[in-house]
């Protein structure tokens, strides 16, 4: 191979030398050597600059090792390995460092299962995979371009890590320095995984196709075993492009059984729960699918205990009488036992944090309340990023996947109760409290109903009014106020939770990924889309249109990074400096952004800006008709800040 390169370089030097002599001759004939330094006239340029065919003709013919038609490539094997995992999609922004795998996916693989999806930024791709995983309960793969692609993807990767979402990231890399040409040097790294190793569960850089197959299987297994998380495989360019050597074997994926908590500890917990007078359960990231929700319902009904759903997933039906999330702090203050299921930061859940000049945390629990955690969090934890939160003192920590362990715990509670039936009066009281809350919210939602800018309550309920009879899925909620509590979320896919890492640029693409997963089930995907978030990743709209992913983005456009408006206000208030300057650097005005025009420019049906609340309902209806025929739509609604 080195010999072939040497020959080519020698030929190129000869050609350039000849071209220089030719140019000098032209100059000399026109009047002397000095004039040869002047720029050639337009007519001369074509003779001075070599034409492409002249360069090609000057090169030596390919040697015997450079097959013009290669029978196969490593990318073919990689495609088969990806197919064997059952992945439906591979997302990519095209790039040279995975051109071998790219070509194999669309030709050898037929661009089916997996189908290649194109995004305009790697952050969009990973966030889509993040959202997809939370609905489909399985990962999809994202191919990114060496050093630059991994860095583009890193923010979304961090969100997925914090949100315990499985994502399979494939990063192109040229391992052999002799094979690198030009930009491949800046796109290659000795250890690409080092860039993101603090927030992926595992990474590897296989050197053979057999190694690729094994590492892919291991990556899938690690990503899907709770606590779920993103993984990274660095994929060598030569390995993708060169013929398959030897006889690499496909790896058979085993059935994965998730970590079950120690049954003795669960028996002990069941006894504690049965003896407690006022147990309360907090649910973090429990339900990965409908089975998770069903198991939590059975557990809660067996124990007749209130559930506080933190909203990172739809763990528990929102209008089940035992769902008491709306008065969680009050219940915790009275509790004698708290069970935290897959709660990432129990300290935050059990304290009121006061962000004033003197910062302090007030414990919510009364002294003596017992705290027990059941979850997989401690099976995988890293040091650098502080997503684990402040240490919470507990009485018992049981390590194991909550969804997997709930059936045993429920049965153990049933035994510990010894035939004691749920107190109907307690259930009735909780149902009445919830009904009162809902009625109050319904009444409060009417305040400022006809106001312009549109209130967040009206935005929420106008959308609800149009989807209430559909099989809906709220796949993005950039709308901070909690009016969606009025929506009865009775299936796990009704709402898919937040980003985890609170990194902007999540909602729009993650919503699209979730909508992709919903598409196969015929669900109507809708999202409240913040303006600040969309401006990080506007290319998401093009992917939605190009791949015909049905989703309604209802813009919650308050023309600001409004959380920061309030934060700067807090600082200005602390210092007594007035509020008039707090919009500097925090707002998205002058000019106002025309999101409908932006969406239309990328092929998405759009209406807006809509300021009159009376126009909102009919616009949503028209947009949903577009969604129902399988396409994306966007409505730009100008809203109150909160």
């Amino acid at each position: 191979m080195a010999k072939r390169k040497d020959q080519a370089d020698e030929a190129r030097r000869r050609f350039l030398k000849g071209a220089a002599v030719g140019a000098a001759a032209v100059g000399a004939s026109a009047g002397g050597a000095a004039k040869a330094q002047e720029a050639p006239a337009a007519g001369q340029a074509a003779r001075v600059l070599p034409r492409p065919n002249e360069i090609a003709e000057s090169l030596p013919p390919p040697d015997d090792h450079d097959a013009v038609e290669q029978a196969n490539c490593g990318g073919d094997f990689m495609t088969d390995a990806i197919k064997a995992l059952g992945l439906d999609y591979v997302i990519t922004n095209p790039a040279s460092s995975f051109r071998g795998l790219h070509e194999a996916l669309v030709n050898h693989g037929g661009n089916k299962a997996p189908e290649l999806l194109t995004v305009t930024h790697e952050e969009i791709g990973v966030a889509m995979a993040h959202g997809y995983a939370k609905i489909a309960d399985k990962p999809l793969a994202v191919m990114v371009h060496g050093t630059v692609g991994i860095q583009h993807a890193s923010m979304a990767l961090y969100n997925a890590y914090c949100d315990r979402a499985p994502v399979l990231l494939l990063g192109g890399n040229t391992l052999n320095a002799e094979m690198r040409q030009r930009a491949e040097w800046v796109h290659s790294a000795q250890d690409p995984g080092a860039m993101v190793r603090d927030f992926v569960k595992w990474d590897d850089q296989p050197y053979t196709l057999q190694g690729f197959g094994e590492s892919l299987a291991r990556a899938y297994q690690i990503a899907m075993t709770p606590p779920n998380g993103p993984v990274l495989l660095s994929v060598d360019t030569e390995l993708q492009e060169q013929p398959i050597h030897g006889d690499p074997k496909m790896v058979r994926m085993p059935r994965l059984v998730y970590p079950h908590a120690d049954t003795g500890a669960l028996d002990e917990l069941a006894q504690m729960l049965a003896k407690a007078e006022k147990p309360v359960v907090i649910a973090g990231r429990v339900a990965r699918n409908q089975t998770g929700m069903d198991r939590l319902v059975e557990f809660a009904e067996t124990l007749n205990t209130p559930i506080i759903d933190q909203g990172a997933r739809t763990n528990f039906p929102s209008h089940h009488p035992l769902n008491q999330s709306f008065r969680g702090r009050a219940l915790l203050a009275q509790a004698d036992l708290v069970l935290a299921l897959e709660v990432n930061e129990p300290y935050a859940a059990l304290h009121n944090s006061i962000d004033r000049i003197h910062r302090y945390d007030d414990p919510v629990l009364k002294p003596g309340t017992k705290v027990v955690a059941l979850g997989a969090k401690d099976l995988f934890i890293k040091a650098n990023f502080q997503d684990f939160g402040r240490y919470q003192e507990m009485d018992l920590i049981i390590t194991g996947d909550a969804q997997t362990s709930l059936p045993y715990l429920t049965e153990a509670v049933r035994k510990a109760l010894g035939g004691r039936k749920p107190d109907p009066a307690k259930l009735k009281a909780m149902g009445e409290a919830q009904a009162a809350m809902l009625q109050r919210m319904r009444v409060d939602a009417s305040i400022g109903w006809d106001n312009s800018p549109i209130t967040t309550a009206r935005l929420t309920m106008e959308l609800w009014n149009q989807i209430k009879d559909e099989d809906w899925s709220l796949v993005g909620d950039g709308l901070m106020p909690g009016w969606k509590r009025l929506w009865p979320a009775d299936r796990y896919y009704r709402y898919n939770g937040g980003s985890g890492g609170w990194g902007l640029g999540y909602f729009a693409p993650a919503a699209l990924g979730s909508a992709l997963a919903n598409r196969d089930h015929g669900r109507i995907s809708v999202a409240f889309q913040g303006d600040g978030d969309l401006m990080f990743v506007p290319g998401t709209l093009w992917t939605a249109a190009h791949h015909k992913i049905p989703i309604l983005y209802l813009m919650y456009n308050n023309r600001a990074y409004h959380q920061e408006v309030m934060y700067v206000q807090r600082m200005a208030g602390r210092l007594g400096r007035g509020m008039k300057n707090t919009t500097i650097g925090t707002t998205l005005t002058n000019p106002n952004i025309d999101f409908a025009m932006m969406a239309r420019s990328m092929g998405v049906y759009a209406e807006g800006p809509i300021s009159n609340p009376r126009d909102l309902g009919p616009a949503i209806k028209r947009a949903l008709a577009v969604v129902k025929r399988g396409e994306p739509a966007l409505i730009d609604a100008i809203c109150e800040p909160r």
Partner: protein
Amino acid sequence: MSFKPLAGLLGLALCAAAPALIAAAPAAPQGNVAAGRQAYADKGCASCHGLSGEGSPAGAAVAGTALDWSAYHGQLRRPRGTMPAYDARVLTDQEAADIYAYLKSLAAPKGAAGAAAVAQLKGDPVAGRKTYLENGCHACHGSVGQGGGPGPTLAATSMTLPAYHQQLRKPRSVMPAYGPTLMTDQEVADTWAYVKGLPGPRDPDKLPALLRAPSR
């Protein structure tokens, strides 16, 4: 503003100037209370002396200061203690006089008597709306007091004016404090009149999008 007052140990601040060490003060210009209130906030005086001039561990109480003009001016220009100097490049004599007038205006007694006095104020809802929007109240409470976000509903509030006033001056929760440098008692009363007069909830059964909203 390039000058930042030091927040640290208690200085002798404005209450203990030593005339013998200080050059003779110029004749006191006529001070303007409103301009002084703004300057007091802009120049960072509140950082140590408190929004209402009530003082703090970093600065003495200055509300209704008993210092005469000369002593006050001297403390600004060549302060004792850890208080940073405010020379004429940072604070003109006119600004100093405005702040002085403002501090003098803060002499009204606080506490129960203050609350009673506040209760007697008559608010102007039109002026209140302007103050409410200009001071960012709507950022958390909504422009028509609808709440729903980090701030509670204020439309048709049932809070009394003294309770409302107290929440602005010394808020519970994370709400920013609105001291008299930011909002006078009259302006507080105006915003209260505005939110109290805002329409409260309507009958949700008469609004199509709420008619079938679940209420169990």
